[in-house]
């Protein structure tokens, strides 16, 4: 078939039936076809911007080997425009969310289960007051909150017998300092009169002198239960040992509270 076509072509050339175009001119026609049509349509006042877009699709489809009608090209343009409009509308809807700060606080993953987000109400402080707020919280967080409340320790100035008030204040201060180091600043309070209701545990004690012997006793009281959870004391023979005695007492208190 190819050979017959070639021979026929040569016959047509011999008998001058052709207006042969060079390959360069053929390419020129391909590139300028749509533009020339646009000029023609403008000359007869039939050109619009929308029709220009339709022509682009029409000629592009031709080049890809798809012979579409102009109506079909207009239909395809309609579909493309609709999809583009929906994509833009979707993008506009989604974009603000990308820039909004994420208020969810994610806890570290449990080994056994999934992470549950916990929303903190920063305007009212770290801990929510009230039983209803607590019940709404997940279990792991409830336990942590309970532990935090247990650590709220109020320290009263130790009483003194046969020893200067400055010594008892110094001893109270030393014990408080060590407890703050162990438990944290927000967990330990100096108690004035009338502030017992703000704490769960109270540390109270006394310092006394009997000859050369100095006796330091301390008691931790659970306010809710109304009973002592720890009673301890240290006897020292010299004022040089006061600091080490205070450290031992505070360690005992810390060990008891964190149980």
């Amino acid at each position, binding site marked *: *078939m*190819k050979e*017959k*076509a070639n*021979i*026929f*072509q*040569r*016959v*047509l050339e*011999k*008998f*001058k*039936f*052709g*207006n*042969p*175009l060079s*390959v360069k*001119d*053929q*390419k*020129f*026609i*391909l590139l*300028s*076809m749509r533009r*020339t*049509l646009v*000029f*023609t*349509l403008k*000359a*007869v006042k*039939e050109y619009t911007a929308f*029709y220009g877009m339709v*022509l682009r699709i*029409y*000629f592009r*489809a*031709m*080049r890809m*080997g*798809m*012979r*579409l*009608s*102009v*109506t079909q090209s207009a239909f395809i343009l309609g579909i493309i425009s609709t999809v583009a409009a929906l994509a833009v509308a979707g993008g506009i809807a989604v974009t603000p969310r990308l820039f909004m700060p994420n208020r969810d606080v994610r806890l570290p993953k449990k080994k056994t289960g999934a992470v549950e987000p916990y929303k903190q109400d920063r305007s009212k402080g770290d801990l929510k007051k009230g039983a209803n707020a607590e019940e709404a919280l997940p279990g792991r967080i409830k336990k942590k909150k309970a532990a935090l409340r247990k650590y709220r320790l109020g320290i009263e100035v130790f009483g003194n017998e046969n020893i200067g008030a400055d010594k008892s204040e110094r001893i109270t201060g030393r014990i408080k300092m060590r407890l703050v180091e162990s438990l944290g600043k927000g967990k330990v309070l100096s108690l004035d009169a009338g502030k017992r209701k703000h704490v769960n545990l109270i540390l109270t004690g006394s310092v006394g002198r009997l000859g050369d012997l100095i006796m330091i006793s301390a008691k931790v009281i659970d306010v809710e239960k109304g009973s002592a959870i720890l009673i301890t004391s240290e006897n020292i023979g010299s004022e040089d040992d006061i600091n080490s005695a205070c450290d031992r007492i505070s360690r005992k208190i810390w060990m008891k509270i964190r149980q």
Partner: protein
Amino acid sequence: MESKRNRLTEIYADYYSIIFSAVLTKVGNRDDTQDICQEVFIRLYKKLDEVENVRRWLFNALKLVVLEYFREKRKNTNLDINDVFNDVSLTFVNGFRDARIIIGEAIENMENFKDDIERALFDHIAVSNFTYGHTAKILGLTRRQVEYRYGLIVDRILKYLEKRGIKNIEDLL
């Protein structure tokens, strides 16, 4: 009902390149050829409702517009259409002239073409010497489709020539 504008667009897509090649061989430069082609299609748009055979109308209009172009260019209003479009068949004599006439009839006979697309396809390849690839891009076909359909057209024309007495076309070469 298809609009006039859509009809013009589709006719333009099929025939622009053939008209362009016919004008370019006469005029010789691309810019003037584009202007002439544009004028031809503007006139077609105005008469589109009255035209029956679009291809014949376009080639007749082409001759008129090219003639007007040469009259204006050479400033000779007496220029005749035959001065511009010579009868090529006159250059052949005796048997060759007869053969050319028969081949011309075979090419013009619409029974040898299934539809306007095949007619346009033949004009592009056989008359304007377009490559299969370029023809495919102009007409919205694949290269394989163009090659196959052109082969079928050539078969039909050769059978027509056989009936008219030209049994072996290679003898004409």
